[in-house]
């Protein structure tokens, strides 16, 4: 007979092992799903965990996809640790696409050719400000009217999508695009410098790595970051210490909004070099899973970002090579998060096997 028994102290070991366990369980369930779909489970799993790492080109694609996931998740980790539940990173990302992409598009249409050292910061600032502006709406409504940041940030995602649609169907539509809803391609001078020749990987990855370090420092070495976390863990203690809750709210949302916006700008200008309505494909939501699988920890987020990126790439590969349904990636992401939450039970509880005899007594 199995029994769940509270641990005297939360287990540190389990908090690291839990994501691994969840991943293994996800893989097992995935194998079962492949079999049920009439595909070879080994081949199916290899699409997700082997093929994406099989060549430099594939690896570069994994890194490229992981870049926005990591950057967005870093901001969300700061937010969630502050007990601010921004789940609208997708919307802030899209505003970053418009902000950063808008800078590149404007330079392109004006025919302005500036050196990279000027263009890159402009794009970065444009994207970051775009994301911040979108998150500021959330912060303002929460601060002023105590509106739930969960609902406001989520609903603003749909507004942001319509905003992107309006821009690419309307004012920013490519005049030579045969009526397709997209902007013209940005001028080569605005593209982000490439990192590995022959691949699409650009310096966005370096931004991500630098931000990992910066976020770690902010969380664990900067008093402001400490204040945010106190507010998240124990609001009354924060008030007792004299930390302003509204300052914490604004800081958390500006950081996460800004980072999501930055990720959008890097994707638009660095990866796609244009804006179209399919640019994000839900990265802002996937980043929430990255954030939790990574234990709200910057280093954990790097690994989780790579993992989820592999799952996205694997889904695309499975679709094209094995004819697997597109929805499978979403199913696996959902499975991973649910199993993770289930496995997290073991951080605070342990399983005890009681003999039938003891149970009868």
């Amino acid at each position: 007979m199995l029994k769940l028994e509270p641990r005297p102290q939360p287990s540190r070991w389990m908090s690291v092992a839990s994501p691994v366990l969840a991943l293994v369980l996800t893989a097992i369930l995935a194998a079962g799903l492949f079999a049920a779909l009439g595909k070879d489970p080994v081949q199916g799993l290899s699409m997700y965990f082997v093929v994406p790492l099989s060549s430099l080109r594939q690896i570069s694609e994994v890194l490229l996809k992981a870049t926005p996931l990591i950057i967005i998740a870093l901001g969300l980790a700061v937010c969630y640790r502050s007990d601010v539940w921004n789940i609208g990173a997708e919307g802030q990302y899209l505003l970053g696409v418009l902000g950063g992409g808008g800078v590149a598009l404007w330079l392109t249409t004006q025919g302005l050719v500036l050196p990279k050292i000027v263009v890159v910061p402009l794009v970065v600032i444009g994207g970051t400000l775009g994301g911040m502006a979108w998150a500021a709406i959330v912060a303002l409504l929460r601060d002023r009217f105590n509106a739930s940041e969960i609902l406001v940030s989520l609903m603003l995602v749909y507004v942001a999508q319509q905003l992107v649609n309006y821009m690419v169907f309307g004012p920013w539509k490519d005049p030579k695009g045969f009526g397709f809803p997209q902007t013209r391609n940005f001028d080569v001078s605005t593209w982000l410098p490439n990192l590995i020749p022959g691949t699409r990987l650009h310096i966005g990855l370096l931004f991500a790595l630098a931000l990992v370090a910066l976020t770690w420092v902010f969380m664990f070495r900067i008093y402001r970051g400490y204040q945010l976390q106190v507010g998240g863990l124990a609001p009354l203690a924060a008030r007792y210490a004299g930390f302003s809750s509204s300052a914490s709210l604004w800081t958390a949302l500006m950081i996460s909004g800004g980072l999501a916006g930055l990720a959008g700008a890097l994707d638009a200008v660095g990866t796609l070099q244009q804006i179209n309505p399919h640019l994000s494909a839900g990265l802002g939501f996937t980043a929430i899973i990255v954030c939790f699988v990574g234990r709200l920890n910057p280093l954990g987020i790097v690994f989780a970002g790579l993992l989820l990126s592999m799952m996205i790439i694997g889904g695309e590969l499975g679709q094209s090579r094995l004819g697997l349904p597109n929805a499978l990636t979403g199913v696996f992401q959902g499975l991973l998060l649910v199993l993770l939450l289930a496995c997290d039970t073991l951080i605070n509880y342990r399983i005890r096997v009681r003999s039938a005899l003891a149970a009868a007594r």
Partner: protein
Amino acid sequence: MLRLELVGISKQYPAVRANDNVDLRVEPGEIHAVLGENGAGKSTMMKMIYGAVRPDAGEIRWNGEPVDIKSPLQARNLGISMVYQHFSLFDTLSAAENVWLGLDKRLKLPEITRRISRVSKEYGLDVEPLRPVHSLSVGERQRVEIVRALLTEPKLLILDEPTSVLTPQAVQKLFVTLRQLAADGCSILYISHKLDEIRALCHRCTVLRGGKVTGTVDPREQDNASLSRLMIGAEPPQLQHKPVHAGALAFAVQGLSVPQRDQFGTALSDIAVEVRAGEIVGVAGVSGNGQQELMAVLSGEDLRAPANSIRLFGKDVARHSPRRRRKEGLHFVPEERLGRGAVPAMSLAGNTLLTRTEGVSAAGWIDTAKVQRLAARLIERFNVKAGGTGAAARSLSGGNLQKFIVGREIDANPKVLIVSQPTWGVDVGAAALIRGELLKLRDAGCALLVVSEELDELFEIADRLVVIAQGRMSPSIATADASVERIGEWMSGLWPKGGEPPPAVPAARVAGVHHAQA
């Protein structure tokens, strides 16, 4: 035949053996005290008797028959009733409706109301059945709880720390009721750590220490020292109380009025108190009379104080944030340890940073080595038992965490220290250490304002006393000139008018009559 007998009861929790081969024998009509420090296993024992927790080993006998009490419902059916320390009443319902909720559904409300009136008359428990609970004082609420327990006609009544919320006079009144109940044949289990009360009221006393019974005695034949030896294994150390050398005026509150925050809060009305360097001013009062509201305003957590109402060395700090007040030398220890005085999930080092910013540079950079050293110093200086500076605050026992929090503020060398409930839920040894440290700080020239609901404590450490009742504050009186009876009277809001500047308290505003909506 014994009413209740526990034989060899044990209960193991993951980290601690809460009850270890415990015996308890309660006669019919006996008032039986269960004495022990926090964590000695009193609550676990009561929970097993009341069916909320089941023992791992041992036997419970009820009127001589072995019973297996599976739930509180079964316990009530056997005739066991319990009055918890924290009341479980709905504020928006009347007293009668609250009582009704816990009883047989077939009874009608008018019938309940009649029975409440009858029982309250019989036992001198003054309860008005139709008053909504939110308008009742704490003592009245307790009486509602007791009446509710009595309506089930219990054979055994369990009372958990019943006097912690009562004035000395109300305690005497409660004792009369309990003695009458016992005379009618109801056994009473009286859980407490207050030695005087046990000696005055109880027929027998079972003492617990570390989950084991250390003795069963007749408390009427014991003195405090012998009971305390059984309870903690030693007599509490005597405090050194040097004469006062009150210095300059350090902290002054004048004309402090703050409206109630919500329907159930207490409004503060024209509060005035002064604290000089090198003295301790004690604030006595029954809980819920505005202490929490006063503390929040004095600490800066509530910034609604009118300008100039709070002065620190002559400077108006009424609108300053807690951080700013701390920079100016005013430190504060709140009554809630976990969640307010400390962040439960954070390490002790992390919790040091909450109010101590020596390890933070002007640019906001945290010097973790310095913070660790500071935390380690606090742990050593105040004898905090913890698994190092990395131990999470919630892993500490209440007493150790309190030592850490009080220590953190004392170690900051404050000029003014405000402490709320310094030894609440803290064992006798830790309490003595904390009181000793407060006295040392006083002798070093700090001005202290100590709010406590334990009168003994205030009489022990305070140089002057004030009383807060219904959001108003009495004039101060030197502790040497005060008596428990006098302070008890003041706790009902009846202090002499005049002498001190306003407020004139209308004579009608006595205990029990809820305060007017300010």
